[in-house]
């Protein structure tokens, strides 16, 4: 059947074009960013060169990029799970904070235990803390039909106040409590409790953990019953219910797991980077907005855990490079927030192109008499948001 063969070949080519679409989206966003830079009376080429140097210019710069990418990837993995289950988790910030608080508490309390044990327990505590903070909106959605987008945003604000209270009150660094300045921070973790560094840079074990977890999440979503059910509920809750899946339980699970990964991201920030929790009163002061940017990274990675790895590195690079850009050409680094928004705008817009191309391929396949049952509807189950 030469026609069929030809169809598959062209299909492979279009798939390739499809997978390159996010790159075009980034380029389009950078182009618009260049226009913005130009309007701010800055030479865009100079600015982007500073951005590139800041992110990839040296071993240290690249390590910093990876350090920034680690929480993005962890949060992004959670986002892959929840968005696949058609549950929108905007609560990464709050889940990171609660995860970090629980992990820090473990690290500061069990000072008599061996290092590896405390680190392991702390990571588990972070995982659980995030799971609780994600699970609450999950229960509210599943059993009280409360919109999870709003409840997770509210949970962020609640977590920030809880952090501000704890770091000024019960968990404050004892040495700060005596000073009049009273910087809201916890005591420093013991050196043996820190996540080991991988090179003479700030890169820490958390990055490897995150990559390993990306593979695990892939297996979870596509090779286990749990993952299949989460995706099935996300695709069609009614059909899932008829198939005997307890839809509400999987909604809760999707948010709970999603929160857990964000909680872990918070824990690795404390144990791998800062070695203590410190607050400036806002959530981004602790998280660096990773709870939001992780969403951007996951969407850019088309909600695929493995694709989210390069996506996180890209956004980590943008964040690190933006600081250098701010120093060199005096543009506010907040420009990167706008750039991130633009990238997502283009990625979602390009979804439209992808769908149209898919429809055309289907139409072309239908015209072929001997066309095989098209794989496209299945493909949609994998890529649909």
């Amino acid at each position, binding site marked *: 059947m030469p026609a069929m063969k030809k169809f598959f070949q062209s299909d492979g080519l279009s798939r390739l074009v499809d997978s390159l679409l996010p790159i075009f989206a980034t380029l389009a966003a950078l182009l618009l960013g260049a226009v*913005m830079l130009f309007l*701010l009376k800055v030479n865009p080429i100079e600015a982007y060169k500073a951005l590139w140097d800041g992110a990839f210019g040296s071993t240290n710069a690249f390590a910093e990029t990876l350090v920034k990418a680690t929480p993005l990837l962890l949060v992004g993995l959670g986002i892959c799970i929840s968005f696949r289950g058609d549950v*929108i988790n*905007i609560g990464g910030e709050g889940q990171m904070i609660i995860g970090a608080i629980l992990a820090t508490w473990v690290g500061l309390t069990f000072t008599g235990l061996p290092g590896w044990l405390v680190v392991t327990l702390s990571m588990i505590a972070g995982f659980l803390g995030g799971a609780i903070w994600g699970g609450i909106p999950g229960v*509210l959605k599943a059993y*009280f*039909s*409360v*919109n999870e*987008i*709003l*409840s997770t*945003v*509210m*949970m962020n*604000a*609640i977590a920030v*106040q*809880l952090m*501000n*209270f704890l770091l*000024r*009150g019960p968990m404050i660094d004892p040495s700060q409590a005596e000073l009049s300045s009273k910087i809201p921070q916890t005591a420093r973790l013991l050196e043996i409790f820190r996540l080991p560094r991988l090179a003479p840079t700030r890169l820490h074990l958390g990055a490897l953990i995150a990559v390993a977890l990306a593979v695990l999440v892939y297996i979870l979503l596509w090779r286990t019953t749990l993952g299949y059910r989460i995706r099935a509920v996300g695709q069609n809750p009614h059909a899932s219910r008829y198939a005997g899946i307890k839809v509400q339980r999987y909604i809760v699970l999707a948010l709970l797991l999603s929160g857990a990964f964000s909680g872990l991201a918070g824990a690795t920030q404390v144990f791998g980077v800062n070695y203590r929790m410190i607050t400036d009163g*806002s959530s981004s002061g602790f998280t660096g907005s990773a709870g*939001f940017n992780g*969403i*951007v990274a996951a*969407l850019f990675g088309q909600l695929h855990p493995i694709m989210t790895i390069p996506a996180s590195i890209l956004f980590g690079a943008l964040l690190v490079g933006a600081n250098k850009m701010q120093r060199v050409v005096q*543009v*506010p680094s*907040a*420009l*990167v*927030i*706008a*750039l*991130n*928004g*633009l990238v*997502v*705008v283009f990625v*979602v*817009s390009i*979804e*439209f192109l992808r*769908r149209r191309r898919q429809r055309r391929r289907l139409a072309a396949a239908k015209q072929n008499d001997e066309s095989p049952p098209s794989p496209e509807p299945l493909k949609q189950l994998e890529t649909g*948001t």
Partner: protein
Amino acid sequence: MDFTIILQAGIASGTVLLFATIGELFSERAGVLNLGVEGMMLVGAMSAFSTTIATGNPWLGVMTAMLFAGIISQIHAYIVITLQADQVVSGLSLTFLGTGISLVLGEGLSKAGTVSLLPNFSIPLLAQIPILGKIFFTDQSILVYVGYLLVPLAWFYINRTRPGLHLRAVGEYPSAADALGINVFRMRYFYVFVGGMLAGLAGATISLAVSPGWFSELTTGGQGWIAIGLVIFAQWDPIRAAVGAYAFGALRRLILDIQGPLLLLGFDNPFYYNPYLGFFLQMLPYLFTVVVLVIGSREAMRKRIGAPAALGNPYIRGERGK
């Protein structure tokens, strides 16, 4: 602690939520969910403040805020109406985009000093009414009075006029509306624009009237998200939206003011003597929103009313069942 003064200030800060909520209500009634309210409000607050600094004319500031936020909203409109992309993701990216743009353009604005604000005045006669006159009609910003007018007008427009009927049709049953010759796409673009303009007005209300100035993303402090929650609580009705917005405004003021005095109703004020309690007070609006959502969602479910049937769905001509 004088409660009428707190309520008076609460009405003013509730006006911010009111504009944002009514704006989102229009957009959602046309079937388009716009999660970018927070970003549009920031753009509005920033452009209102910077325009007023540059020109000295706060009215120009209000105009610019509404126009700029309206234009930003059209990005979302294009993506979800024409490109039929996911409304949730697009709305989120609008929040990122609006936040980023306002932070970049607003860099240094917080040190720019004071500006001439919108006028405050009392309404003669109405201000004489005991208690209520003091709360609602004494020394309020002109935008507060605009808010009073907007609520009944919005209700009348949506429920009693022909264009309002078309608006509801587009949100409930777009294909039927299309068959009747209503341009679904144009209507949706228009009401997303209205929503954007009102969100911009809400931002301008903050930076030019309620708490003047530019404090980067703390200017709005999550009020855009609360507004989206209020739309659900209001079950897409402007009158209920107003009640919710003013109640929330009053709550926000109360939380700010309750920490000041030494004595509270004759007792030692616990919030003064233990400042840590303040953090829990500041959680209240958000906890309250969650509670409101639980109540609102259950009620909406039970009555099977409220949410426009086509909310969140792109309209695709010739496709069944949408």
